[in-house]
């Protein structure tokens, strides 16, 4: 693949105006111009995504325990998967995690970002607003394992801070076996996830708010709009791209959740907090049921890619 040395890499984005050169130059050469720049990324993509994905899909059509020769069994693993109560239960749990990692943080993040940007920054000062923003973001910086262990302490039924606080204020009857009781485990995990996740939308939305023309707010104020109305009528439509980004990335993150579950509950008690990613890992590594784990991972990938495509479509429609 030899290229004329003077060919400039084609800029990405909207069609550029050819500068200092006649339009309609040697098109094929111009097109090929960016290809060398794609090679490193493409190679990495192939090595860490394309090949493993292809192999994973291949394995999911076999019966294999990790060594030896896989036996081709067609769609038997998928048939088994769709009849597996644990898979459905873990998928339902995953919906709850999407709520806790995408929907609730996005909603709360919007309120918090609005409050920080509009109220705290303007009335108290920019510095306290920045400090608060950093504080909200802190859990995002902590490794999941560290945050998880701290929360394990807090939620420990015996010596945990949560129960100690309840006892201290005299609400002994409200003390819970937070992560050990099937009725509270998922809610507790969701609470931890909201705490971990909240900083991300706050930071993104605050960045988005900088972009919004202040005149819009000024004229709305002149028209007597309330804070709430301004939020819903101006802020939300104006930072819609940011909302899409947050919803997409957080939903994907929620579907991939593994680390938090691994540290907090290992899917327990009695499968009450199991999620497909953890379930897949269990089959891969603990049960030597590699092909079944691969089938779960494949289904998960299809769902994530499908959702991502839907989101991106909705977003480009919204922008168009």
């Amino acid at each position, binding site marked *: 693949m030899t290229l004329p040395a003077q060919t400039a890499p084609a800029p990405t984005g909207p069609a550029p105006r050819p500068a200092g050169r006649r339009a309609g130059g040697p098109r094929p050469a111009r097109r090929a111009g960016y290809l060398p720049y794609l090679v490193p990324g493409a190679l990495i993509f192939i090595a860490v995504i394309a*090949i493993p994905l292809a192999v994973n899909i291949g394995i999911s059509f076999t019966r294999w325990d990790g060594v030896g020769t896989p036996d081709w069994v067609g769609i038997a693993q998928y048939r088994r998967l769709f009849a597996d109560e644990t898979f459905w239960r873990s998928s339902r749990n995953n919906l709850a995690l999407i709520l806790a990692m995408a929907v609730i943080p996005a909603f709360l993040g919007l309120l918090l970002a609005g409050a920080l940007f509009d109220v705290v920054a303007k009335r108290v000062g920019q510095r306290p607003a920045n400090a608060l923003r950093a504080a909200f973001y802190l859990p995002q910086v902590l490794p999941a394992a560290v945050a998880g262990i701290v929360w394990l302490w807090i939620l420990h039924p015996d010596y945990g801070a949560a129960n100690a606080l309840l006892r201290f204020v005299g609400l002994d009857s409200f003390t819970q076996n937070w992560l050990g009781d099937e009725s509270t485990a998922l809610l507790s995990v969701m609470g931890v996830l909201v705490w971990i996740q909240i900083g991300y939308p706050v930071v993104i939305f605050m960045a988005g708010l900088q972009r919004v023309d202040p005149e819009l707010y000024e004229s709305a104020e002149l028209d007597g709009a309330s804070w709430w109305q301004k939020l819903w009528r101006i802020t939300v439509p104006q930072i819609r791209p940011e909302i899409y980004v947050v919803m997409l990335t957080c939903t994907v993150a929620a579907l991939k959740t593994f680390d938090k579950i691994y540290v907090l509950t290992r899917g327990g008690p009695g499968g009450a907090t199991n999620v497909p990613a953890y379930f897949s890992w269990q089959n891969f590594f603990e049960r*030597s049921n590699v092909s079944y784990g691969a089938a779960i991972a494949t289904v998960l990938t299809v769902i994530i890619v499908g959702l991502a495509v839907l989101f991106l479509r909705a977003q480009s429609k919204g922008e168009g």
Partner: protein
Amino acid sequence: MFTAGKGVRLLAVLAVATTVLAACSNDGDDGGGSAANSGPRELKLWHYEGPTSAMGVAWAEAIKEFQSSHPNVTVKFEEQSFEQIQKTAPMVLNSDDAPDLMEYNKGNATAGLLSKQGLLTDMTEEVTKRGWDRLLSENLQTTCKYDQRGIMGGDKWFGVPNYAEYIMVFYNKDMFAQQGLSVPTSFDQLVSAMDKFRQAGVTPLSVSGSEYAAHQILYQLALTKADRGWVDRYQRYTGKVDFHDSVWTYAANTFVEWVQKGYIDKQSTSITAEDMGTAFISGKFPMMISGSWWFGRLQKEITGFKWGSFLWPAQMSAASGGNIWVIPQGSKNKDLAYDFINITMQKQNQNLLGNNGGVPVAADPGAVTDAQSKELIENFNTLAGRDGLAFYPDWPAPGYYDVLVAATQKLINGSASPDQVLDEIAKPYEENLANLGG
């Protein structure tokens, strides 16, 4: 932003590059080969026992001894974690990075699986030649020998343990004295001791429900009604297992009763094994039903009270030979590996293990001097002497551990009835059995 044309081109690039990568992924054969006997050699050894544990101490000494008897050999010891080996063993053993000798988990789902896949060396000849079969009692040999389906108790030796382990009751002597209780020797006495503690407002058992301890108690309860035939059917598939037979039903119902009576705290569902141990060590609970792997730690860390151990009051208890030495099929230094195992089976190394809180398989009874260690070893010998080694509940099927943890959590929380829980543990068991047959 993303046009179809670009996508197609990208795909083409990926496709070309894939073939290139695939072409260079297969790197030649194992160069080097084994050195001649006289030249410098290396024995690559993996195990996952902590350096201060009984096995860690004894095996470190074995390495020293090996080095002095094999001056041309360097022992390259790489400490691994239990999880690391458990999760990656099949894949590592299939590669060039495999060690020459390693400690591995015994049982159908672990060593059995690897032996079936041809990843482990059949040691039968060396075992008889070196007389290890005479050192290990029949009971202990079960976990060393596997048949061609990878089921223990078979005909070929694939591993050798140099220690044993069993589940017992650790108890806080001071708390027993406060209640005027003596050491229970029967199941009824154990129950009435627990009642006494309940009346005094003390939860009698330190239990972990998020890890192994709770389901081991369930199994211990089953063992109070079980016989050898029952254990063999469950562990070695010698006959049909009925999960709703009187033994399992009794175990599940009694377990629930123990929760209702407060012998087992409902909160234990979220307690880890580590929490369970530290709670016992700190003197919060009078008893802990768990394995000899705790022994060394209790010896070192309990300072505030006197403690001891007694046998589970039944004919049998969860117990077996310890993890086994296995020699990966790909090892090029099998002769050295056998020599090393041999050192760990000798009296000297066995006595060292016994004096450090381990349960040796071939020690000199007189050479173990520490009183608590003596009690530990004598109890084991009693149990082994009455054919009481019943293995562990999670052995029969790969991944059964998670199933049992989840099922017992439901028993503790009361979110499923004993019958439902028994159905739940029956299903994966039977699936595995069908796989084995197929």
